[in-house]
Structure formats: structure tokens, C-alpha cells
């Protein structure tokens, strides 16, 4: 069975906010102490700003795909549409924020695994 690893490009996407600064997994790996603190934290507060920045950065890298949905009113959301809704905290935007938060939690779990914690 092959080992889980962070999806390609996610090393350069912010995963945590400390004292108003965003840190990517790449940043954290350069600061083992900080990495241990983050991965060992019981609760990590995740701001909407961080979640939006993650989508914006992924979009900038051309890795945020259009999502299709069986939604009557908005069946197709491009990366730009997703950011638009998230920034305005529309009903759709809240769903998108929740989905991004779950991905962040999944990536933290992978980071923990790969760090041997």
C-alpha cells in the first residue's frame, strides 16, 4: 500500500495562520519547532481569510478546477466564481468555505502522518 502524501502543489498553499501570517507546509518544514507546534495543537483556529487565500493561491497556480453541481441556480462554479461567493459569504460561499476547511483538515492529517506524528 503506497503512503499518502500532500497533493501536488499544496506544499506552497498556506495551511495555517500564526499571528496574522500565513504559513505553507513548505515554510513549516523549514521550521521544525513551528511544525511540531502546529501539528501538536489540540485546536487550530482557521480564519475565512486563510481559506479564501488558499483557493486564491491554488487558482493562481491553475490547480483549482471548475466544480459542477446539481444545483438549480448555480450548476457551474469557476475558480473566480468560487472566490467571489466566498468573499461575499453567500450561501454558496459558506458551503465552499466548509469544503475548503475539510480539505485543510485532511492535509493537516497527511502532514502529521508524513512527519511521523
Amino acid at each position, binding site marked *: *500500500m*503506497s*503512503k*499518502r*502524501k*500532500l*497533493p*501536488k*502543489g*499544496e506544499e506552497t*498553499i498556506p495551511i495555517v495562520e500564526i499571528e496574522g501570517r500565513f504559513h505553507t507546509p513548505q515554510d513549516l518544514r523549514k521550521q521544525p519547532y513551528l511544525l511540531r507546534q502546529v501539528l501538536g495543537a489540540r485546536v487550530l483556529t482557521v480564519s475565512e481569510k486563510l481559506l479564501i487565500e488558499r483557493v486564491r493561491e*491554488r487558482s493562481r*497556480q*491553475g*490547480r*483549482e*478546477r*471548475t*466544480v*459542477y*453541481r*446539481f*444545483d*438549480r*441556480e*448555480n*450548476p*457551474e*462554479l469557476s475558480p473566480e466564481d468560487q472566490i467571489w461567493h466566498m468573499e461575499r459569504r453567500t450561501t*454558496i460561499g459558506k*458551503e465552499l468555505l*466548509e*469544503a*475548503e476547511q*475539510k*480539505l485543510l483538515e*485532511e*492535509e493537516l492529517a*497527511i502532514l502529521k502522518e508524513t512527519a511521523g506524528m
Partner: protein
Amino acid sequence: MGIFNEFLNIMPYNCRYCVQGFKGMLHISQEARNQKLELIELQNVNAEKEPVWNTLTAFDPIFVNGFGHGNNDVYTGDSETPIFNSWECDILSGRIVYLLSCLTANGLGPAIINAGGIAYGGFKISWGWVSKDITADPYDDWYAEGFFRASNEFPIALIQGATINEAKQRSIAVYNQWIDIWETERADDPDSASAIKWLISDRDGLVILGDVNAVITDVGLATSLEITVKPPSYLRHEQAFRFEGILKESITGNPLAGRTVQIMIFERNTPLVTLVTNSNGQWSCGISLPKGFYRLYAIFKGDEQYRSTFTDIYKVYVGTTQIVITTPPPESMEQNEVITITGFLREEITGIALPNKVINLYQAGVTYPIGTTTTDASGVWEFNITYSEKGRFSIYVKFHEDIEYLGSQTLSYEIAVGTLLSFGRSTKANIMVTASQMISGSIFLAPEKGLVYSIVCYQQLSSIYRGKHACAIYRASDLKLLGITDERKWETGTTGWIMFVFSRPIPIEAGEEYLLIAWGTLGCSLYFDRGYPNRRYAAYNYDIKRDYPNFPDPFIRDTEPGMTDGLVSIYAEYVPAVEGQHQLIVMSSPELNVPVSTNGNIVGYTPITKLLATGEHVISVPEEVTT
């Protein structure tokens, strides 16, 4: 409770997002066939409320699987109109439902259980997926495969005999399997994060309600109904025919004696005939039907030993007709010119000519015939048409139902009488803008007094959608609605100038500004150019699904700068008023079609607009009308 082992699969195809869903659903249907379930697929235009509800009533399947657009309270079909909603889902009482749609677990799901549904599976989130080719079979699509395999696992598990709870666990296991694939062997794909995000969201959004131990299958032996004498496709009124077949055990092929077989008409609850199979499993009956269109089938509803089964549906046309135009009217003619249109009337399917039948000629907006004739020995009819006034008129020919035959009518044909002038923009603009989420148009100055007969606009109609569209004219000074054109429907994609005709002409005044606008269902777009401040009138406030085709009156425009700058490719066609001529407008309420006479001669029926020369005229209508 619905009948075990019977499965209705609702499969819309109309919108571009449904194409991939449709192809995904085919895998569920295939598993139902493998497991020898009785499968009913309602595809494309049949994936709509009426066929779905009729099918549920007729065949009573226990399991309903559907995909398509939805929201908290609504699940929609092919045309994106509701099939079930929270306040109208009692038809799902006694059934198990799985909906691959958005958000239905928040309202519709609980409503189904409250209405007596056994169990529900669906999503509290907007089910989303990523795709490489949105029209491909998802199982062949690098990105979409995991999403559809995971969702399909729920109905497939039920088909294979799992409980609702087991189906949910199996579905979640497949989501997890695909998340793992993207986190391991596909982790180097640049889009792996996107795929993982939506797989997690969908997995966590799956909800089950009701009896989690419910199943859709039982242990009876599978049966089949073999047809030996099919109903004919065409019959005369009350002409007798035979419908025969054999009931068998599916695997051994042994005939089943003494079992009840019912002959049903689709969309009706009560059996047309109830029969008992003889010692050879045979059933047979003679039937005659009054004129109409029928869909017949035979059904064995099952018993303690055997599962239910039913036949294909046979279409039977009884006394239906077809009216055909062989010489259609020209697109234009001169005032007082006489043109001839011809055609014939025949039986549908057989093509046999129908002589001595009364044929009527109609003009849109006038329900009384403007001409009447009779078919000759070869079923041929003919009308001579002349117009004394300029304008654009829409005509059609109709055969009304009689004792033996059902009625039929031709398409509508537009005729321009004389030369029509135009005002507005008759050149193609460059910016395409939706006409479905936004009503929009532009204001134009009417150069002279006259009557507007039609609006023409440049549109792109998407081939992915079939839809409806119409235009309207407003007075710009108070944005009062003056008239709505006929509604057009499109079946295939096209781009170009499209004409919409008013059923009665709309008077315009010289020097007055008018707003010409267009509106349509999903897939309809207009063209405009910027650089024309305050000439564009547009509004996002009207919900196409809720409001169309009720054009707002008065029109309330959005006044943001981006919404007011522009000139739309749209123009009106009109006939100028002639010096010494005056418009006579006669309306009636609540009844229409009241005959109007000038100087003792009937000139038309209300609502009517006529031109009269300067002088004295006697205008009369009956004191009393009977309707």
C-alpha cells in the same frame, strides 16, 4: 408499500451537466438488469413530473432513484421544473428514494419521510464533482469517475439486496477509496487537491432518513411476460383488436397457470381488463378503444412465490389524424393580392386520405376561423387568402375533432403583407449576454405613427438546452407594458435573427421612445455593444423559473452603470399610419372574440385594431354575446 424488485430510474438529459449524470445512471440501470429487477427508465423529456407520477401510479415500484438539479425543497427533471417538492411528494409514500441532487436532505428528504416514505438517501450539501469532459461517461473520465462510482454505490448496494444503512456505508467506503487514490497514486496530478476537496464534501454530505434497515428486494422467483400478439399501432374508432401473451418463470421458462394478468393503459389507475392465465400460462383478450392515443401494457403484480413483471409499452393510435400543408403561404405578399395554400388531411400512421372533412383557417389572436372549406375525395383542401391591410399575420390550418377522428393542426406561418418598416438596431452587436437570467433590451425612438406587428432580435440559442423565448414592447416614458409577442420554442441550437409576432398590432406614436426587450429560458442569449449610455434596460430581479413568461409591468430596471450602457441587436417592424387614416381599437372584457362591425360589415373580433379613413363610421358590437 411499493412493489418489491421494481425500480424507477429518473434520468434527465437536457442540460449540459445532466449529460454526464445521465451516462452515470446507465451503470445503475445495468446492475438492475443484472440482478433481474423490473427496471423502468424515464429518460430525457420523460424525466418530468407527469410521466414520473404516472409511472409511480401505474407500476408502483418500491425504489425511486433520481439525479438532477435540486435545492432544499425541490428535485427537478429534464426541463428543470419540479418533479417532487417538500409540499408535494405524497406519491413517494411506501417507497425508498435516493436522490443524487443538491441539498434535498434539508427539506425534501424529511418531507418524503413525513409523507409516508420508507427511507430516503440524499445530500445536505450541493453535490459537486470535477470533470475532464462534462459530456463523457463518468466511468471513463479521469476526474469524474470517483464521484459517480461513490454515489452509484448507494443504489447499486440496494439493488444487490443491502439495507439503507449498508448502502450508505458502502457508498462512504467508495468515497474513501477514491480520496485515498488521489492522495497516493494520483497525488502528483496538479488537480488532486480539487478532487479530494469535493469527494470529502460529498462523502460528508450524504444523509439517510427513515427505516435504515429497509430493503428494495425480496426473495420471490423472477418472472417474464412474453407477448405473442401485439396491439396494432393504428386503429379506427372502436375497432376491435387482440392482445395476447404468456406468463413464465424467468430462469426455467415454465409457464405459470392461474395467475392474474392485468391489461393497463399507462396514466390510468384501473385495469382495462383483468385476466387469469390458462394451464399453458397464456392470457388473451379482445379490446376496442374510442378515438385517442393510448399506451398499453400488461402487468403481473407478483404473489407470495413470484416476483412482478410487466411488458413493454405499446403505442396505439385510434382515429388520430395529420393535416399537411403542400403549398405553404409565401413569406410576403402585396395588399389585395390573392394567394392560395393547399394541403391534405390523412389518417396518422396509415396515411389514408380523409374526404369530406371540414377544415378551418385561423389567424393568431382570433379564435374564430377566418376561412372554412371541405376536403375533396383525395383528402385535399385549399384556401384563397387576401389581406386589404399591410401588416404581419400568423396563420394556421386546423381540422377539428369529429365523431370518427381526432383533430390536428398545421404549424403557424407568418406572412408579411406589403413592406414593413423598422426601428431599432438591425446590425449584429458583439457582446453576448444571457437572456435567461436577465431580461434586457434597449430604447429606440419611433420615427412615425404606426402599428408594430413584430419584433426581431439577434439571439444565440444553445443546442444543449431546449427552451422558450418571447419579446415585448414597453412605452419608455412610464415603462408600461404594451404587448407581448407569441412565444417561440427551440429544439436545436441556432444563432441569428429571430422573429416574434404580435397577435394584434401595437400602436406607436411619432417621437415617442419605446423599449424593445427579449427574455427566454436557460440557453437563450442576446447581443449588445457598450458605448450607448442609458440606452440599455436590463433587470436581474426576475427569476426565469418563477416569473417567465409573465413580463413585468411596469418594467423595473437595474440602474447600476454596467446595466444601463449598451445597445441591443433588436428592432421592431411596423406599418406607418397613412395620412387620413385613424386607428380604431376595440377591446372587450371579460370575454374576447366579440364581433366588431364598421358600417354594418363585420371587420374582426375583439381585441381588434383597424385602420379607418377620415370620415363618419358606425362602429357596432352585439348588445349581448353568448359564450
